[in-house]
């Protein structure tokens, strides 16, 4: 079937199997490999993308369900050649180690800051609680999102 999705601002149309998962559409059909796969049960969250600005786990969304919608992946965080505040903050606060969960974590962080520019630590921890990290123990991820929030408020 024909699926048309605007990915990171660019309209894309592809003929795919009806059963194709959004994560495979993004990774294999479109070729954006910054979105990862870590489980089969919607548990780990490394496949998270933004669907019309809302975080979804792309391993449990069909590509067909994204037809006519906007998808943002990690490759779309940067705007006008400038890193997103969340991207800068993850580097500056050592918010990543192996980097496998990082694209998803940053997207969830960015989405949170869209609706709440001054989240508490608990609000951040709750927001990222659908995303697992095995390396960092989360403290520096929380710190990174706090730093990005502060940066956003300062502007």
């Amino acid at each position, binding site marked *: 079937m024909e699926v048309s999705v605007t990915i990171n601002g660019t309209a894309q149309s592809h003929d795919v199997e009806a059963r194709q998962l959004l994560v495979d559409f993004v990774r294999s059909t479109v070729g*954006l490999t910054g979105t*990862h796969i870590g489980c089969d049960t919607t548990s780990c969250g490394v496949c998270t993308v933004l669907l019309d600005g809302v975080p979804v786990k792309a391993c449990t969304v069909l590509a067909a369900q994204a037809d006519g919608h906007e998808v943002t992946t990690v490759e779309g965080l940067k705007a006008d050649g400038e*890193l997103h505040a969340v991207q800068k903050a993850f580097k*500056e606060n050592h918010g990543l180690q*192996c980097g496998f969960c990082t694209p998803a974590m940053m997207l969830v962080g960015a989405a949170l800051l869209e609706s709440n520019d001054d989240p508490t630590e608990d609000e951040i921890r*709750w927001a990222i609680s659908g995303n697992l990290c*095995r390396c960092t123990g989360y403290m520096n991820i929380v710190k990174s999102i706090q730093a990005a929030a502060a940066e956003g408020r300062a502007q």
Partner: protein
Amino acid sequence: MTATPDLATPPEIGGIGHSVLRREDDRLIEGQGDFLDDVALPGMLHMAIHRSPVAHARIRGIDTEAASAVDGVVAVVTGELMAAHNLAWMPTLSGDTQAVLATDKVRYQGQEVAAVIATDPYVAADAAALIEVDYDMLPAVTGPQQSLSADAPLIRDEKEGQTDNLVYTWESGDAEATDAVFAEAAKVVTLETFYPRSHPAPLETCGIVADVNSVTGQATVYLTSQAPHAHRTLFALVAGLPEQNIRIISPDLGGGFGNKVPIYPGYVVATAASLLLGTPVKWIESRSDNLISTGFGRDYHMRGELALDAGGRILALRADVLSDQGAFYSDAQPSNFRAGLFHVVTGSYDFAAAHVTCRGAFTNKAPGGVAYRCSFRITEASYLIERLVQNAAYEIGMDPADFRLLNFIREDQFPYTTPTGFTYDSGDYHTALRKAMDEVGYTELRATQAAAREEGRLLGIGIAHFTEAVGAGPSRTYDIAGLKMFDSAELRVHPTGKAILKLGVKTQGQGHETTFAQIVASELGIPVTDIKVVHGDTDNTPYGLGTYASRSTPTSGAATSMVSRKLADKARKIAAHLLEAAEADIDLAAGVFSVRGTPERSVTIQDVAFAAYTNMPEGLEHGLEGVSYYDPPNLTFPYGSYIVVVEVDAETGVWKVDRMVALDDCGVRINPMIVEGQIHGGLTEGFAKSSMQWITFDDDGNCIGANFMDYLVPTAWETPRFELLETCVPSPHHPIGAKGVGESATVGSPAAYVNAVIDAVAHLGVRNIDMPVLADRVWDAIESAS
């Protein structure tokens, strides 16, 4: 903190001791990491594995007809086909054999039985599900006690000479001397505890893209590998391929934690398929593939005893372990040490006698026995001694902190040889524990705990003071599958003064591309931003045994220092030539070579690098490059004092961490920011295992914990906040005094969390709750004690 003043560098050079931001982050934060599943080659086929749904059964027949008929299926591979190429079985890292694809029996749920190669991963998975296997069911053996009983079915009936399920027996220490001390002891304290099976579960599963070119014979193998060079040699030995034609490329790894040390059956099948079909073949594990079939950790049933004198001094230790090895013995550990380095179980304490025994048993469970974020069974050892010590303190009515301070090895006793034969390099345990106690407010906390008890509230304070043994070699003692454990670094300085450093080890998130450049920056004064670090590609890096057991800094880090010093020696000669001075009069500091006494006469490392290619003195070869292979004279022994404060809800057994104060001494810290990040991660792993994360089996051998809904990994919501402290007693034998830290917190923290919960209910008489310390277990313990 830097090792020695001459390694000090300003921030713009960014050597040892600077919290330099990570070089690898730039690609990772933009989604430009290059992970295994991102590899896509022209004509690449996809593989899916059909696994056994049962734990123990004889195979009567395999029907692949329906699978083969699926449109897009290129081949279906069974054990029979593998056997025709002598590849139905493969050697394990511990000298056993493991089925690649089952031919005779299946021996655990999830075992590999057949594989489908197809043009599309969805099609491969569809077809794999259509394979029908006719099984003759056999009784499943799911625990080592059951396995070693006389009437247990023989699991490894194909193994010549194997008449029972015993894998090995192993011992360390002096049985007679230890027994003699126990016979005279004023008090003996005993603990039986189980360290359950756990899985490293890196968020990226294991995978391979095998690309064997049938014309050239070149095998390029993209592999999730923590040890690419060792894997190349093992591929050569197992598959019979000429080693010069094998290139292992381990790209960015999404975590490893020991899971990516072994060679798995899927790797062998995919490589054989690529060889036979002449096309690249990709195989990526699903999460359940990963959890049910690849390298587990722990599964140790332990009994420990401490002999004490009347004053509370430890006199001797006895430890006995029953290890559940699963169906194939594939521990990733040195071949002379069947129980890994478990004999470090004497811990941080000074006493003369110890005897440690271990038996391994086959069961109908997945093989593995990997060093899950620890150095070869160190975590189990550290857990047992720290739990025992805490119980001993209760039994003699002494505060657990005071008991430790009484029994610690003293600073003036280092280097200290333990009764099981380790020589600890350096340490100051008393200072470490006292500093952690001061930070947490230990004395006041004990008063608060007593007051809370009066109100019926259960507060607990748990201590663990661990000592690790990491960084293997020395190569004369330690090997993996016969490959001796040393490691390497190759350094080349280009004419413009920029450098490329190539490592025998392989990062999985530890930040080698930053920290190893920092070592060169300190040694030669080349700014860290001018140094590119290459690793994970066997065609382009020197030989080494890889990254696990906290060995990268102790071995390859040391090699990086040594090769830098080789280059510094040559650079000094060139500088002397440029400055028209005697070589002996040249000093090097932070990248500047100057003439002693007239420091205004100087050249920079960049000047020297240019001259190495354009203006060499007579008699010296051109270029500025070298390689070092470093064989450490000893292990290193990082240590730490962790104190956890919990509150237990007496009504429900639910416990919550109020404080986690972690003091680590890992010697010199190359990049403090990265060290702290590693400790955060390790403390979380320790919390995971103590609170929720385990793999168990039902009586039929069905794996409970086959996905992230059953195998619970802590999220940001449950994970405690950590307070970190440090001391620094450098390793005396490491060139920059570093000890390794990647696993310290995973090793040390489980006992701290569990001791804290026990401490909350110890006054009721509770002395043990096995991990994971689930709320119902705590509630049961309270109920049975009262």
